[in-house]
């Protein structure tokens, strides 16, 4: 196989011939001196500018992949005839497999949606104000929400609500304080959005919102088979603080204990709520 090793007598000589020819071509009449550079620039201008700006594509890709196939392999490597009973079992259990697939897909979607908030946080980093004292304190949490509401005077009626219907029945802008109990434990994004909109509608400026809830950890201990994966279990206290702060409540504070927390938020003068913000913020737990 060595006979072909020298396809040209002198590879170096061929390289020099090519370089000389390249120099000739560069001297071609009417060819701008910058022609090669311009060719490179043409493509460079088409290259996406910064990988950081591709993050949404990654999120979309993950979201697109948040499904699984329920096609269980039925090929049998050890005993091919087993394929028949395996196929029968697959057909008999297909409804359950699809149910499991839906659950797993939910996990994937929740992951992708959590990435939404990470992305937003990354984009907001440069606009972050100076660090403030943590609005979340650890310690014993009072279960007596009436006592919390009574700690200060309120200009307007004080009400406790246990359903969104209770909130919807309240008058616009005249309520001094709202206590929310047994409602925040099991809310999906749409209901969280409705809760925030309704409290903003009904509270007067300076009015107080108090939310009492078990922590996700406490919920898991209650029923370990119910994983906190699909955005339907108690929001973390941190999520409420982030959400209400972004929606114009100021100040927003949370008292956090191992099994429960209380969030207090005062309705500010500026309300910035938008549906998109609410939905996005509630996902990033």
């Amino acid at each position: 196989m060595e006979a072909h090793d020298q396809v040209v007598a002198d590879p170096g000589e061929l390289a020099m011939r090519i370089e000389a020819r390249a120099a000739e071509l560069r001297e071609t009449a009417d060819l701008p001196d910058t022609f090669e550079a311009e060719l490179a620039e043409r493509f460079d201008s088409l290259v996406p500018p910064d990988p950081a700006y591709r993050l949404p594509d990654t999120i979309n890709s993950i979201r697109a992949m948040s499904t699984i196939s329920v096609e269980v392999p039925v090929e049998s490597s050890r005993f091919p005839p087993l394929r028949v009973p395996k196929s029968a079992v697959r057909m008999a259990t297909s409804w359950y497999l699809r149910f499991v697939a839906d659950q797993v897909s939910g996990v994937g979607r929740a992951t992708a949606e959590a990435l939404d908030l990470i992305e937003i946080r990354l984009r907001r980093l440069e606009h972050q104000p100076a660090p403030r004292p943590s609005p979340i304190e650890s310690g014993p949490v009072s279960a007596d929400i009436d006592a919390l509401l009574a700690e200060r005077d309120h200009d307007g009626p004080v009400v406790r609500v246990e359903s969104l219907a209770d909130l919807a029945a309240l008058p616009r802008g005249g309520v001094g304080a709202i206590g929310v109990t047994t409602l925040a434990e099991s809310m999906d994004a749409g209901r969280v959005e409705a809760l925030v909109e309704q409290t903003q509608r009904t509270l007067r400026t300076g009015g107080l919102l108090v939310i009492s809830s078990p922590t996700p950890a406490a919920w898991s201990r209650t029923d370990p088979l119910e994983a906190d994966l699909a955005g339907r279990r108690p929001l973390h206290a941190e999520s409420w603080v982030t959400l209400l702060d972004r929606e114009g409540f100021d100040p927003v504070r949370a008292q956090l204990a191992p099994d429960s927390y209380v969030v207090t938020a005062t309705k500010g003068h500026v309300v910035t709520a938008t549906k998109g913000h609410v939905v996005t913020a509630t996902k990033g737990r």
Partner: protein
Amino acid sequence: MARAGGSEIALHQFVEALASRDAVGSHVLQCERLLRDLGVESKIYTRTVHPELTGRGFNHEDFRPGKTPTALLYHTAIGGPVADYVCARPEPRIIHHHNITPADMFRVWDPNLAGFLDLGRSQLAALTPDAILGLGDSRFNAGELEQLGARRTAVTPILLDLEDILHEPDEAVLDQLTAARRGGSSWLFVGRLSPNKAQHDIITAFAFYRRTVDPVATLRLVGVSSSVAYEQALVRLISDLDLQDAVTLAGSVPPGTLAAEYRAADALVVLSDHEGFCVPVLEAWHHGLPIVAYAATAVTETVGSAGVLLANKSPAVVAAAVATVLEDADLRSRLVTTGRLRLGEFSLKESRRAFTDAVMPVLDELASR
């Protein structure tokens, strides 16, 4: 299964996907055939099987070792769950490194794919140090395994039955392609539209060639897209350079059409920044096509002296190299002759021998423990 020596051994293959019309997929199938010929029990385990290969591969999680001493052979190409599975298995393992495209080449074009490539690299790093043998399609690939801590490596060219991949041209297609040349020279590249294969460099070099050497030259880029964003950028580049009538993105083509593409072209131009082997070089030799290639990664050793290797790929240098090859009939003839000779080095017989020489001593050691 009893081998010629009387002892028994199993070497099962694991790959992320068993693909059809794919170099790694073809190699895995050939490996299975060779191992069975050698009396070694062997099956293919994977996560997905191309429909054309139904029944040839089994789900990797269905793998159950028998009583026979067993080793695993993992083929690298991209990250995935099969690698994690193999990494967690107690059986001795052999790694066959077909190379993994550096993720940075995809980062801006397809971040998701880049993530899988990153994963593949990290999995390779985890799999390699404990491997009893590292195989590379090329010295370049084997060298990467050594850098990752492989204790024992060998170069075993990819197992390709040239009879399977080298077809006779579809005459009707060949007539069409010949007519479309309009008297000009014709460049060809075959491979996925992919940033690491640098089709954009081919297009810009071709634009320079059209401007300075042959204003009616044509370029055909054959291969399926692996990145929509990159493909769109190529289309835009072709348009910006006013080359719509001269450059064709032919997509994936059947074997007879591919053979016609080679026969109708004047030169195969390869400017890839990263290749693990580069099978189209073998096809070009078979069809008597001279090769102009950028000397990078495994391309350098696959092409060897049977092509013009360039130290840089500036448009003027590439255009000058193609012009030199096409204008110098003697040089062109010698390149074609040398290519056909070198093709013999990659025959299935030679590659099977190299694989056998590298793998069987290791399996003998395992069987005798």
